[in-house]
């Protein structure tokens, strides 16, 4: 935080420009320190921590279940993905199987999250490059997705809907109809976005060949998610290390070989379409059954049984007041969040609170690719580059 670039001796003519934290196109409170020769970026350095909240410390003082609410606030554009990663990590620790309906619902909702997150990215990325209408179109559509979230969890953004062992609540009746509406209408909306941008010559000029990063470099600096796939690496955890029964769904992993801003744009837009495919499959194939695993000492009982069964009441009391005791051990659970590999490293010492919980935030890693992308480009390209790796500062600073 608050680092500076020292001028290289002999190059005093170069200007050191601080971009951010209060800058419209750094997507939050990211600060870049640029060394400019004229308008060309020679070196760059990112400076973060303006949103640092110490979540990793907080986890250690909360029970496993309480921790879920913190995860919402990390990648605030994809809260359900964070929930999922966190719950999956604990479930792995506990070796807990969750029922298919919960799995399907989780897939459906995280994919909707992905779409919503990509929409925000598309809108802000476009407005960075000056296409302001795009932003509002994207937010209009995102609104509908947020309504679904609100419907199932009562919250638009800080959902905390996934719980260890399943879902928090039974989704309301008719929610799938709403989902269907979105899924039916969406492809043509995506066409609309593409009509505005994909072949627009100005857009092409601003993005093609800009912020190029090779596959080797991308892997070396730890890029993941669409940013990595934009460099031609076919890597998607949903395919390669399936979790939450993603292996039962049929979808493609779009990649582009160019590695420039445009490639990442195309990959994300294609991902929106793929996610919609998954949502449709999840919606149509949604199995019937319970939404929680049958593990009474871990999963909270539903209200009905709590009121009728003394056992349930005791479990409830134990879980709420003390929490559950996972075995001693450590796991690393990664999922494919909209931004890339979101990993939770959970160390348990047998107590009801995590001994250590570390979040491998995709944006944090992706940020490291930025310097490479911007080197030798103009300031205006820097803006396009930042937009193209789609960072969320909440997740970076944690």
């Amino acid at each position, binding site marked *: 935080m*608050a680092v*500076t670039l020292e001028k290289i001796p002999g190059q005093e*003519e170069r*200007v*050191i420009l*601080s*971009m*951010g*934290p*209060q*800058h419209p196109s*750094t997507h939050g409170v990211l*600060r870049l320190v640029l060394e400019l020769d*004229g*308008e*060309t970026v020679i070196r760059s350095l990112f400076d973060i921590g303006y949103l640092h909240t110490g979540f990793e410390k907080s986890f250690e003082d909360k029970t496993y279940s309480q921790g879920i609410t913190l995860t919402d606030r990390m990648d605030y554009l994809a809260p359900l993905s964070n929930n999922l990663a966190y719950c999956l990590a604990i479930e792995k620790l506990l070796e807990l199987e969750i029922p298919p309906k919960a799995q399907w619902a989780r897939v459906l909702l995280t994919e909707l999250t992905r779409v919503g997150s990509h929409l925000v990215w598309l809108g802000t990325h476009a407005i960075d490059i000056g296409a302001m209408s795009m932003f509002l179109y994207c937010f209009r559509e995102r609104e509908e997705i947020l309504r679904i979230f609100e419907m199932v969890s009562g919250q638009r953004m800080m959902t905390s809907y996934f719980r260890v062992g399943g879902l928090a609540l039974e989704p309301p009746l008719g929610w799938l109809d709403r989902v269907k509406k979105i899924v039916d209408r969406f492809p043509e909306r995506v066409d609309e976005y593409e009509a505005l941008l994909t072949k627009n010559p100005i857009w092409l000029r601003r993005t093609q060949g800009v912020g190029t990063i090779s596959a080797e470099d991308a892997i070396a600096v730890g890029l993941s998610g669409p940013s990595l796939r934009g460099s031609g690496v076919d890597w998607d955890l949903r395919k390669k290390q399936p979790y939450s029964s993603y292996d039962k769904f049929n979808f493609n992993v779009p990649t582009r070989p160019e590695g420039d801003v445009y490639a990442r744009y195309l990959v994300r837009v294609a991902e929106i379409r793929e996610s919609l495919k998954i949502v449709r499959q999840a919606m149509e194939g949604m199995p019937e059954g319970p939404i929680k695993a049958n593990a009474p000492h871990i999963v909270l009982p539903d209200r009905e049984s709590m009121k009728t069964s003394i056992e349930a009441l005791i479990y409830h009391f134990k879980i709420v007041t003390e929490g559950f005791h996972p075995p001693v051990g450590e796991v690393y659970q990664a999922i494919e969040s909209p931004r890339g590999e979101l990993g939770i490293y959970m160390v348990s010492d047998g107590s009801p609170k995590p001994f250590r919980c570390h979040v491998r935030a995709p944006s944090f890693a992706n940020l490291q690719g930025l310097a490479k992308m911007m080197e030798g480009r*103009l300031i205006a390209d820097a803006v396009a580059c930042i937009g193209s790796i789609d960072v969320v500062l909440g997740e970076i600073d944690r």
Partner: protein
Amino acid sequence: MESGYLTILIYIGAVVFLSAAILGMSAWVGVKRPTREKLSPYECGIQPVGDARERFSISFYLVGMLFILFDVEAVFLYPWAVVYKELKWFGFTEMLLYILILLAGYVYIWKKGALDWSR
């Protein structure tokens, strides 16, 4: 002086008065609660580093210079265009020659890279 020019002088006077009045008014009416942070130059919320009036790329000068020279050309074109119907082919060749000579310079600066900003 023709009446047209006098009218324009009146108009100029009116506009100048209007702008001055607006500016004066806003300075007079607007609240003033200055603080040190408010009055510091914008640098994305960070303490400014170095003097803002640093030197900038020479390309700006080049553009200004090219502008002057082509502006002169343009200035010749206006009277030429106005009397063009009387000059006909003579005017055409005259200007063709003129433009071609300038075009040589134009091509030169193009090749020289003076028009490239993304070096």
